[in-house]
């Protein structure tokens, strides 16, 4: 084994042994392939084992193949049927009967606390398997779902490795509570969203990036009430069930090595002005303001003597590498899966990297035929060297985009220019190179996900199972900004002598699940039932300490700080007690019905509403099993289904219902002050869900289609209901308001060609209409960024979706004056924030993905395309980068050169005039079409022929290359259409405010299985 290891890790080269084959004289074999009932099978793939020689059957199932000798073995494979190997004998005719693959037909998937045959599902469930994601070099497992499942919208907020990812299942249901689905790994609801305690300017970290996607066997996304109501008060946003890989019993031990190395680049670079162009423009802006540009010190030939490309200065070609080893196997009693993974990924921004070490050990052990034990254990450690994000004035990428090209990052001696240097520009040009390289922002996480279960089979009908699990997450952040940076050196209130913060957070979920299941068949009637209890407790502790005034930049830990002037520690507990039951019935696999219910008690609910009931019903009808349905048509399965039920959202924050006092200090003395008004009626948000769907399978399963339509209404929205301040408070937590989501989803899996050349296509498209139906009162809620001249960038308003943009209506540039013309909505003769209106929405008309898999002999090619259509994107960066001369502190985009210059100019870029804010007011001038179609991934692989593989005693060797974010078609003029500054935001999604664009990864890999 040792030499094999060496072989794999010594690089990507493997000795390719020349083929040695002894050809005997050839002869022709013919025959017919049929199923058990003697129906002919067209398109069956036949090849000679160990070679690439083969053919396929014709429309009558007949084939003709030239074989070498009597030692050859013919392999017959056909989708939905068991592969059969037939040794060649002296006979010239070989007829073969293929059996239906019961495993494939009877493939079971996890649906909450039980299992169901995939083809008998009557809820809306999207499945993604390990195979679907094996080519994607993704950091986190939620990212792997992108474009793979209809109705699951995954948005990576930026190109930062290990950064935030927004996952939405069937739209947004909530304004104030969380919109993230519930992620459950092997039965444990795991931490998702951001773990780190400190804000990084909109760009968060991602708790799910602590887990290794290569350990995932499958994802099931539960989308309708019948599938997810069993998760009750946590299910409204959908449930993502993740099953990790396990060993199979009686399987030979196999070891797999996988090595990936690649390079990462920016997908797109903004076209900014050079010094010369900018100086010309700035002089024009100053002149237009009636001032003398020479007096302002913007002088041609002097100021533009330096021309720095700041984006080049802060970016690099980054390296990613991943090494994975996994071992699985088992005998009749015990089976196991174990893996180790190391991933190192640099960011394209200097000094940014994400490292992960993860190990897994899953064991199943059968004590007797009736008693089974098992465990799952994952330990992972990540280190994230972060850089300041886009939303900070002193952010790195944002700083690079904005910084004036006539400054330079280094002095004559090559030292980074910082505060105190006369060439340091200060606000808002804080030398982004220094901002990237000098501070230390290190986030370390430790995750332990461990569970043990025992299962006892009383008899053929009853089974009991108990599981106890812990999800332990520890995050430690170590930050230091030396005196050579903006915060540590420039900001007067910090003191100019460095600034350090150290914080830790521990999030632990303990969960115990106990279920009893029952199944019985009475003739044609099949009944399955499960009942259980679940107890969950989550503890969150956090600490932080802040220090400043360090003796020098060599002392970077708070022990050396001159003053330690802020710190805290905190602990929050929450709990959930649940009782649930489900029952399923089917008659001849023709009529299906199920009922589920969950009774959840949550510590987050008010005393008057501690427990909530979440029921659902569903029914299905398989028409193809009716006697009247003609057999042997192209339709082999047709099923209609429907469901109705209620789910909840309990992520409304802790202790929101209590009337409370919190600690306060006055004049150096500590006391308590009122914090919150009591609302004992506070409860979960309720989503009423209805779903209808059709599952259709044609051509012996070669074309499978599912269509789903749904109508969901979320009511009792958690709302900070405004009350008059005469009460001493501004608001009280209440349950008011409604949001609806209405949509259709289509998924198609088709095998276009089968045989030697195989081509399959998976397509999914979803359309979701989100609408705010009502709010606490008629006052619109303004959200997002403060926007000059228009109040805010976003609005929450009945009749409009969440993520609606607000602003002035830009009518064009007056050819006579060059000034921006805005619509005077209220007709008062002047433009004011009162003239704001709804200018668009970040919600797309539809989103989807297409994956084409092609294979020919040992080669396979996969092309994954993702698209979003009809969404608007707010290019908020352009309020600084195309600012009509409002200030001269920022570089400008090339479009600025189209500005109005003289009367008669027809353009959509207003005149540049220093200090003129009106031409730069927030309007739909900055709102752009955010539609895009992106070749998200192309991967090409080659499976070495068996005869070479056998030489090193391996089972398979695969060499592959993968490229992500290869091409993008979009009309968006900013960096990248696939960004969101306010990571995870619902009301202010789709804003690009100096957000780091997605990155392009080119990777090579080798996978060797023994």
């Amino acid at each position: 084994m040792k030499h094999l290891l060496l072989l794999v890790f010594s690089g990507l080269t493997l000795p390719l042994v020349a083929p040695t084959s002894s050809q005997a004289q050839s002869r022709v074999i013919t025959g017919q392939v049929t199923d058990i009932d003697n129906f002919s099978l067209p398109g069956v793939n036949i090849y000679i084992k160990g070679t690439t020689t083969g053919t396929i059957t014709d429309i009558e199932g007949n084939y003709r193949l030239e074989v070498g000798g009597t030692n050859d073995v013919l392999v017959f494979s056909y989708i939905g049927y068991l592969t059969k190997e037939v040794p060649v004998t002296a006979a010239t005719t070989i007829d073969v009967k293929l059996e239906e693959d019961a495993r494939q037909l009877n493939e079971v998937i996890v649906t909450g606390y039980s299992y169901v045959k995939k083809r008998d599902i009557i809820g809306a469930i999207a499945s993604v398997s390990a195979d679907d994601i094996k080519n994607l070099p993704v950091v986190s497992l939620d990212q792997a779902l992108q474009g793979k499942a209809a109705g699951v919208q995954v948005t990576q907020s930026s190109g930062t490795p290990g950064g935030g990812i927004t996952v939405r299942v069937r739209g947004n249901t909530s304004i104030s509570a969380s919109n993230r689905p519930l992620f459950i790994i092997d039965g444990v609801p795991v931490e998702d969203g951001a773990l780190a305690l400190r804000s990084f300017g909109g760009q968060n970290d991602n708790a799910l990036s602590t887990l290794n996607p290569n350990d995932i066997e499958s994802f099931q996304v539960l989308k309708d009430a019948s599938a997810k109501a069993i998760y009750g008060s946590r299910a409204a946003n959908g449930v993502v069930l993740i099953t990790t890989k396990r060993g199979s019993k009686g399987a030979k031990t196999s070891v797999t090595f996988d090595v990936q190395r690649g390079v990462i680049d920016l997908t797109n670079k903004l076209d900014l002005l050079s010094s010369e162009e900018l100086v010309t423009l700035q002089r024009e802006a100053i002149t237009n303001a009636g001032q003398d540009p020479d007096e302002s010190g913007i002088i041609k030939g002097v100021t533009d003597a330096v021309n720095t490309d700041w984006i080049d200065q802060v970016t690099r070609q980054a390296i990613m590498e991943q090494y994975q080893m996994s071992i699985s196997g088992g005998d009749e009693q015990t089976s196991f899966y174990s893996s180790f993974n190391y991933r190192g990924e640099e960011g394209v921004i200097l000094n940014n990297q994400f490292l992960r070490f993860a190990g897994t050990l899953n064991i199943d052990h059968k004590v007797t035929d009736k008693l089974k034990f098992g465990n799952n254990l994952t330990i992972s450690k990540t280190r994230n060297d972060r850089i300041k994000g886009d939303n900070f004035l002193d952010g790195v990428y944002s700083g690079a985009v904005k910084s004036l090209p006539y400054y330079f990052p280094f002095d004559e001696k090559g030292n980074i220019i910082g505060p105190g240097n006369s060439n340091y520009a200060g606000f808002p040009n804080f030398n982004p190179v220094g901002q990237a390289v000098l501070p230390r922002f290190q986030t370390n996480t430790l995750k332990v996900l461990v569970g043990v279960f025992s299962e006892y089979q009383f008899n053929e009908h009853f089974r009991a199972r108990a599981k106890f699990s812990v999800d332990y997450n520890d995050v430690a952040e170590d930050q230091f900004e030396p005196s050579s940076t903006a915060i540590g050196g420039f900001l007067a209130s910090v003191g100019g002598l460095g600034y350090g913060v150290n914080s830790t957070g521990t999030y632990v979920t303990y969960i115990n699940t106990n279920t009893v299941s029952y199944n019985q068949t009475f003739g044609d009637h099949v009944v399955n039932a499960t009942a259980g209890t679940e107890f969950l407790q989550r503890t969150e502790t956090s600490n932080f300490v802040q220090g400043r005034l360090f003796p020098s930049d060599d002392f970077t830990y708070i022990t050396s700080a001159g003053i330690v002037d802020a710190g805290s520690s905190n602990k929050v507990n929450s709990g959930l007690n649940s009782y649930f039951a489900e029952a399923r019935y089917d008659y001849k696999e023709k009529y299906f019905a199920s009922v589920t219910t969950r009774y959840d008690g949550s510590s987050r609910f008010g005393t008057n509403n501690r427990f909530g009931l979440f029921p659902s019903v569903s029914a299905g009808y398989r028409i193809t099993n009716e006697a009247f349905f003609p057999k042997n048509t192209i339709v082999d399965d047709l099923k209609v289904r429907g469901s109705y039920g209620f789910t909840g959202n309990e992520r409304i924050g802790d202790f929101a219902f209590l009337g409370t006092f919190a600690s306060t200090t006055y004049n150096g003395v500590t006391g308590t002050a009122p914090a919150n008004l009591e609302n004992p009626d506070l409860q979960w948000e309720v989503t009423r869900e209805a779903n209808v769907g059709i599952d259709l399978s044609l051509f012996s399963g070669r074309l499978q289609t599912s269509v789903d339509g749904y109508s969901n209404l979320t009511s009792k929205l958690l709302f900070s209901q405004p009350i008059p301040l005469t009460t001493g408070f501004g608001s009280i937590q209440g349950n008011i308001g409604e949001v609806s989501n209405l949509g259709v989803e289509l998924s198609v899996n088709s095998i276009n060609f089968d045989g030697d050349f195989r081509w399959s296509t998976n397509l999914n498209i979803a359309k979701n209409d989100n609408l705010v139906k009502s709010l606490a009162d008629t006052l619109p809620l303004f959200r997002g960024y403060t926007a000059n001249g228009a109040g805010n960038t976003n609005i929450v308003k009945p009749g409009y979706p969440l993520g609606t943009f607000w602003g002035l209506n830009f009518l064009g540039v007056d050819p006579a004056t060059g000034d921006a013309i805005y619509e005077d909505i209220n007709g008062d003769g002047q433009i004011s924030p009162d003239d704001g209106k709804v200018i668009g929405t970040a919600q797309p008309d539809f989103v989807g993905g297409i994956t084409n898999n092609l294979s020919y002999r040992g080669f396979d090619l996969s092309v994954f395309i993702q698209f979003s259509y009809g969404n608007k994107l707010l290019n908020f960066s352009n309020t600084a980068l195309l600012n009509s001369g409002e200030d001269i502190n920022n570089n400008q985009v090339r479009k600025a050169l189209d500005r109005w210059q003289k009367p008669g100019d027809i353009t959509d870029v207003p005149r540049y005039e220093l200090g003129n804010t009106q031409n730069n007011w927030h309007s739909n001038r900055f709102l752009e079409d955010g539609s895009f179609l992106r070749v998200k991934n192309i991967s090409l692989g080659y499976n070495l022929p068996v005869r070479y593989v056998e030489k090193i005693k391996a089972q398979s060797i695969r060499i592959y290359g993968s490229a992500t974010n290869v091409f993008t078609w979009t009309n968006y003029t900013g960096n990248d259409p696939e960004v969101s500054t306010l990571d995870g935001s619902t009301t202010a999604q789709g804003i690009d405010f100096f957000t780091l664009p997605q990155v392009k990864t080119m990777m090579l890999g080798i996978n060797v299985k023994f």
Partner: protein
Amino acid sequence: MKKAALIILFLVTGFGCTNFLDPEPVALLIDDLALNEAKDVPSVEIGLYGAFRGIAAPKVIAGDMTADMLIHIGTFNQYREFSNKQITSTNASAAALWGSIYRTIYVANFILEKLPGVPGVTEAERNEVTATARFLRGYAYFVGVYTFGAMPITTTSDLESNRNVPRSSVEDLLAFIEADYAAASGEALPESPVNAGFVSQSAVVAARARLALYRQNWAEAEALTSQIIDSENYTLVDDYSDIVLSDFTDEAILEVGYTVNDDPGTDANYGLNDLFRGRREIIPSNQTVVALSNDEAGDRFRNISFDLSELGGVDNGWSVAKYGTADEDNNNIIVFRLGEMYLIRAEARAQQNKLFGSGSALEDVNVLRSRANGAPAVANSKEQVLQVIERERLYELAYEGHRWYDLVRTGRAKVVMTTFNTNWQDKFELWPIPLREIQYNPALQGAQNPGY
């Protein structure tokens, strides 16, 4: 083995228990526990001070920015409205001040309701805390009535009654304030607390003096201010710069206290240092810079400072010097100090025609002039003396939040303000009631101040 399995299965099942559903918050105290034993009393009293502190910064903005002493060069719309004299009912500072006033009143009411039922509190402590609550409630209403006009009077902590409460009359509200001040007077409060960050007997006298001045009860104002000046508990500091650069000077009667640990930081509504220095949202108006560089002002010129590097565009390069960062010694906001007592007495004396000579208005003014090394005040008539006092209040109390209240109560607002900014309208003699209050409180519907 079967037994073992069953034990495992059903032992863990017993693990569930409903106390998961009632975790205790560690950083929060449930209402019923906030004030139910003697040792809670000082804590909640601090909470009251914390609420009261919230009044101080928006009141500085009200007093100086509604008038002619500050202009806005930053990005926050609320300050632009004050600067341009285009104040609207959605102004965030108006809501901040209104909210702080009622937050103070709420905590005071909470204490006044609960305190009698708390066991084990000494009589002296009960009286002291009651007096503090009534005094700070009275002061909150005092700021309210002269900023917003007649305000709703709330006397309980009950949500339902406080969310639907109409405006009172100005007379009733003034009577209510008088009653609160009267209840706080006497021996209940300490004569000299730990520092001027806490209420003393003199603070109540000072508040009554200011109320008497505003109500034009000249004799009472003179008597009350003399009581403080003559007590010699407080002395004018020799160097006026100390007023600008230090907290808790010898003449401080009441200040809202900040320390490094409870600095309000960057809060847009409360962080004066952030507004005046950090963000540079607000700077002194040119008129004030000219006034403070006058010979009469003398050392009061130190209220502002100049930085050449800031000069350019709309920025005149001047800054308010009074409110420092957390590290500096001048982040408190003055509520009452001895200097103001001299000015109140001067005005009360002038109105009683005690203009010149010993025990006169001019004598009081010149006490402050000589302390600040300003040119001695000269006047020949009552009108001139009153003008001297108006100017003197500008110099001496600059950026302590008095100017607008003074111009309005003396009837001089229109004359002074229209020359400062032609957008000035009479309606700006009161701030608007915040729009949200009118929307959410049914009893306030249609009760907005005139003109808004």
